[in-house]
């Protein structure tokens, strides 16, 4: 029958809107405002999954964030997500969910065999089981565990949803919208403070939605609604529901995850699915409330055993009965509230109270309603496998050691209340050293470490009047400090039922001859016996016991298990809980989706892609792009059916025979100005810079202080005190920071300014024997002859009305120039070069041809300047000034750096002149030597030499200086290649460098 366990009226759900959903492929109905959990319970479904280790049947234990069991795999709008708590997931039309941890099905689960083999799965089973025999691990144990374990399946599809990050500042962040959260938000907001109020659930109000209290002549729920409505209207207040503040980090920064669309069938257009808030708050008020504590008894994990507060919430918020024959098992007055709610809705509960003769207003009310109450009674064990069918109960002696004779009573659910545990996670994450409160047997926040204050139940205060009073006062005081305002709210009249003290009873002893599993951690299946074993085996520190038994290590982070675990360890050790101490609380408080953490920074590099001003032209001319740092650069320009190899060969060849043009905009550029600019260059570069004339460029190498090459490039003297430095694409940002470091901290007396101009200039390298002819046509008014613009010269020119800088520098070994114009004119420059270059058979070339050209001429680049090589290794020792000091010079005299057989760059050619050499391969003397075969060097870069029409590579080789002419082997175990090679000079083309000067 449809929604058999739904009351005919009541609850906060929208009964006008019926929703259909599927669980394990069966269709059910619920209402708007339901959670998946409340809708399933309304349909009498209590079997939701299997436990992690023993695969015992699992139902619902809580009604919210504290839920340890009810994890499902969710399907929404073609996507799937694991590890979703059914108690938190709001129902939407068409929701689909399945059980996790079950194989082959929730009703028949092969893993439940573990339950009968549990002798093999005791504490520490991760450490000691399945270790022998070793061969069994791969064949038997691992596949079995893999199939049987897990909390769902992660999607391997690309996530189409959008997740956003937001940075926010406020005076007061208030986490939780229960009585203390609402009161403090209201008081602070009225006093002019900028307030963010965050509520994890869909509905604001926390316990006010379920408590029978009266505030200022309104019900708790009405009062909460009034306050929220008023707060929402205030410009200085941000009110957020479905928002969990899950982490408290350094310097009062908190992170909150807002679930914007998870409760909808489909994310609305232009909306993100979730939003992660980074909130820097001046003050933080933690009003996260408390979570009911279970009492431990036999088979207390059976579906139908749940927290009494959860049963009450299902009743009052969702109009759903968790059972028709409830047994309430309590050690305090809270259980009575649940019992009274049942009674009011025509269901007769039975209360078992561990206390002997408690007296209070609410107990009297229960008695007057005629509720059956048994004092000094306990549940010994739940009976029933997939659902509670009855309970074994017994009288318990005053000292709580002896059980009377065991009776069995029929019931269909057991609602447990073992008193309340303050939710201190956020306070503890902030660095607050918590303290133990004897009165409530739980930890509460101690002295604040950061600017945080914990209020209400989270601070162990369980009366409404005291909570509201403290919250009003604290929020007033804190906001006054910040705003200097003085608007005080007076405390409304509060009516609540007085309760009496709870019984510090938490674990029912085993009856003689029975060995029931009594669970502490419901998600990780840690039972009392596991802790006992761990302690017997010598574990003492609670942190070790936790790791050995996995107590509290599941995704619920032990919200319902930690304190009972501590109690047990204390009892066995004959200690008190505060001496055992609690384990560390770490963020996140609840699971956060990876999507929310990553936000918009998805895809390659997680950074915006940078494109040159000529990008569009490249796209229109069949460029195939490659990532160069954050830049996209043309790798080659495809003609017809060419592949990379053919195209790059054609492009490189055209540079060597005619003229080519390459987009070099990505090169780092730094503008350097000031009277001491030359002195700065002289200190950061290894060669001499003081005498460089205006209108001349020079190649320079800069080192780190440890002598390793940092970067290379050319720097041009534009005018007397003005230089233009270029860096490699990859090192551009580092070089700028490097210069700033020395200018600001080490040599502040130097009068120099540096600024990045990488994006201000578009660059085109024009290279090849016909490049001068082309240049002459591009700049008819300029003298670009060998005399007018010699090698390493610089002039300014007029490119059809556009101002341009022309540098005669070469990276290809050919006669070459680099033309720079302001970025906005980049596209124009490129088109002009292509247009005018037609008659010289110009072709654009990409990075692949660029590499080929530089490799065969032996010009080092990133693959040689890889953070491991010194100038000598790259045959750059000629650039080391003997006369002056420079950054890193002192390190170059280190013993290893001056060793006779020091590594050096060489050229490598395969003996067959055919086989291409994989980059990264090793050079060895004997290809058949036993492993480990001594490595003499490695291939840093490979190309097909267009000059010689055979493969050519650069390598960094031990004793390279004396190896020219040697025959070695290149080995690439990855590509399974052994290639006999000859070592040659690294300058494979034009070794004398005549072409660049021609």
């Amino acid at each position, binding site marked *: 029958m449809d929604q058999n366990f739904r009351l005919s009226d009541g609850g906060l759900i929208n009964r006008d809107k019926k929703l259909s959903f599927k669980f394990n492929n069966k269709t059910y109905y619920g209402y708007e405002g339901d959670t998946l959990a409340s809708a399933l319970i309304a349909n009498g479904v209590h079997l939701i999954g299997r436990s992690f280790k023993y695969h015992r049947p699992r139902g619902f234990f809580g009604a919210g964030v504290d839920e340890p069991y009810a994890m499902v795999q969710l399907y929404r709008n073609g996507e799937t997500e694991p590890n979703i708590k059914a108690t938190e997931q709001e129902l939407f039309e068409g929701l689909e969910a399945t059980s996790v941890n079950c194989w082959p099905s929730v009703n028949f689960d092969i893993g439940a065999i573990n339950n009968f083999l549990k002798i093999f799965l005791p504490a520490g089973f991760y450490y000691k089981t399945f270790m022998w025999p070793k061969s069994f691990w791969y064949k038997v144990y691992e596949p079995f565990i893999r199939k049987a374990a897990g909390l769902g399946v992660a999607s391997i599809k690309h996530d189409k949803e959008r997740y956003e990050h937001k*940075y926010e500042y406020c005076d007061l962040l208030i986490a939780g919208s229960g009585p203390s959260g609402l009161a403090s938000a209201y008081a602070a907001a009225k006093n002019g403070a900028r307030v963010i109020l965050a509520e994890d659930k869909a509905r604001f109000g926390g316990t006010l939605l379920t408590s029978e209290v009266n505030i200022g002549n309104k019900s708790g729920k009405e009062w909460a609604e009034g306050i929220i409505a008023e707060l929402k209207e205030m410009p200085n207040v941000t009110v957020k529901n479905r928002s969990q503040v899950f982490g408290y*980090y*350094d*310097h*009062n*920064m908190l992170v909150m995850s807002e679930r914007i669309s998870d409760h909808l069938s489909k994310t609305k257009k232009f909306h993100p699915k979730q939003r992660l808030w*980074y909130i*820097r708050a001046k003050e933080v008020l933690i009003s996260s409330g408390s979570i009911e504590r279970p009492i431990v008894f036999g088979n207390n994990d059976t579906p139908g055993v749940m927290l009494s507060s959860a049963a009450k919430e299902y009743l009052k918020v969702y109009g759903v009965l968790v059972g028709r024959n409830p047994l309430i098992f309590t050690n305090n007055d809270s259980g009575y509230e649940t019992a009274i709610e049942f009674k009011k809705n025509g269901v007769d509960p039975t209360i078992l109270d561990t206390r002997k003769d408690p007296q209070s207003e609410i107990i009297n009310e229960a008695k007057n309603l005629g509720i059956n109450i048994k004092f000094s009674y306990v549940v010994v064990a739940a009976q029933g496998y997939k659902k509670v069918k009855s309970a074994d109960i017994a009288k318990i002696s005053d000292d709580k050691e002896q059980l009377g004779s065991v009776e069995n009573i029929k019931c269909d659910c057991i609602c447990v209340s073992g008193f309340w545990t303050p939710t201190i996670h956020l306070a503890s994450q902030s*660095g607050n050293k918590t303290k133990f409160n004897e009165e409530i047997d739980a930890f509460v926040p101690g002295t604040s470490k950061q600017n945080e204050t914990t209020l209400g139940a989270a601070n162990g205060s369980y009366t409404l009047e005291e909570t509201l009073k403290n919250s009003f006062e604290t929020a007033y005081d804190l906001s006054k400090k910040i705003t200097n305002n003085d608007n005080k709210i007076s405390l409304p009249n509060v009516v609540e039922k007085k309760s009496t003290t709870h019984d510090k009873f938490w674990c029912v002893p085993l009856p003689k001859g029975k060995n029931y599993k009594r669970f502490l951690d419901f998600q990780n299946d840690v039972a009392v016996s596991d802790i006992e074993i761990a302690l017997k085996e010598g574990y003492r520190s609670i942190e070790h016991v936790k790791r050995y038994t996995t107590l509290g290590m599941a995704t619920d982070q032990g919200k319902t298990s930690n304190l009972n675990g501590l109690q047990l360890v204390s009892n066995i050790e004959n200690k008190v809980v505060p001496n055992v101490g609690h384990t560390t609380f770490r963020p996140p408080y609840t699971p956060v989706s990876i999507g929310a953490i990553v936000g918009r920074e998805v895809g390659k590099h997680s950074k915006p892609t940078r494109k040159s001003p000529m990008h569009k032209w490249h796209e229109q001319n069949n460029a195939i792009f490659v990532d160069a740092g954050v830049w996209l650069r043309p790798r080659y320009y495809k003609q017809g059916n060419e592949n990379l190899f053919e195209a790059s060969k054609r492009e490189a060849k055209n540079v060597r025979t005619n003229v080519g043009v390459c987009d070099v905009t990505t090169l780092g550029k730094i503008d350097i100005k000031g009277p001491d600019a030359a002195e700065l260059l002289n*200190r950061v570069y290894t060669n001499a810079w003081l005498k460089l004339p205006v209108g001349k460029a020079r190649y320079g190498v800069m080192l780190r*202080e*440890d002598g390793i090459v940092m970067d290379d490039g050319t720097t041009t003297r534009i005018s007397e005190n003005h230089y233009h430095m270029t860096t490699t694409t990859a090192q551009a940002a580092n070089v700028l*920071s490097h210069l*700033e*470091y020395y200018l*600001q*901290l*080490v040599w*502040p007396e130097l009068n120099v300014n540096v600024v990045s101009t990488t994006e201000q200039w578009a660059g085109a390298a024009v290279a090849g024997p016909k490049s001068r002819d082309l240049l002459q046509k591009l700049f008819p008014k300029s003298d670009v002859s060998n005399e007018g613009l010699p090698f390493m010269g610089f002039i300014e020119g007029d490119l059809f009305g556009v101002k341009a800088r022309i540098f005669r520098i070469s990276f290809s070994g050919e006669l070459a120039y680099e033309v720079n114009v302001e970025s906005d004119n980049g596209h124009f420059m490129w088109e002009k070069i292509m247009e005018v270059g037609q008659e010289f058979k110009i072709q654009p070339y990409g990075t692949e041809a660029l590499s080929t050209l530089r490799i065969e001429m032996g010009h080092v680049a990133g693959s040689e300047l890889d953070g491991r090589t010194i100038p000598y290794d790259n045959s750059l020792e000629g650039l080391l000034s003997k006369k*002056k*000091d*420079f950054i890193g010079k*002192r*390190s170059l005299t280190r013993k290893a750096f001056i060793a006779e057989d020091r590594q050096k760059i060489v050229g490598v050619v395969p003996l067959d002149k055919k086989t291409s050499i994989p980059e990264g391969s090793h050079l060895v003397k004997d290809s058949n030597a036993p492993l480990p075969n001594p490595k003499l060097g490695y291939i840093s870069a490979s190309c097909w030499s267009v000059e010689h029409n055979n493969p050519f590579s650069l390598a960094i080789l031990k004793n390279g200086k004396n190896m020219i002419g040697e025959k070695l082997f290149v080995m690439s175990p990855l590509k399974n290649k052994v290639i006999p090679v000859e070592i040659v000079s690294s300058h494979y083309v034009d070794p004398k460098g005549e072409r660049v000067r021609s």
Partner: protein
Amino acid sequence: MLHIKCPHCGMRSQNEFSYGGDATVKRPELGKEISDQDWDNFVYNRKSLRGKHLELWQHLSGCRQWIKVERDTATHEIFRTLKANEDNS
């Protein structure tokens, strides 16, 4: 995420800064004789202090100034921040 007060820009989040190591290390003067030991100490040897530590940060995504930050390496407490040219005594 730390909240660092740039002496030039004010309170900013850590992700605008990059870390630059021990601020008390002084680069030996250029052109001056120095023993291997002293040079090694400058280039490589650093104490990994627990507690108060004067360190360099660069306000990379802000004013690009290198600043000095006195921070507790264990608690992350920041005691004060200084401009590059301010004396840390």
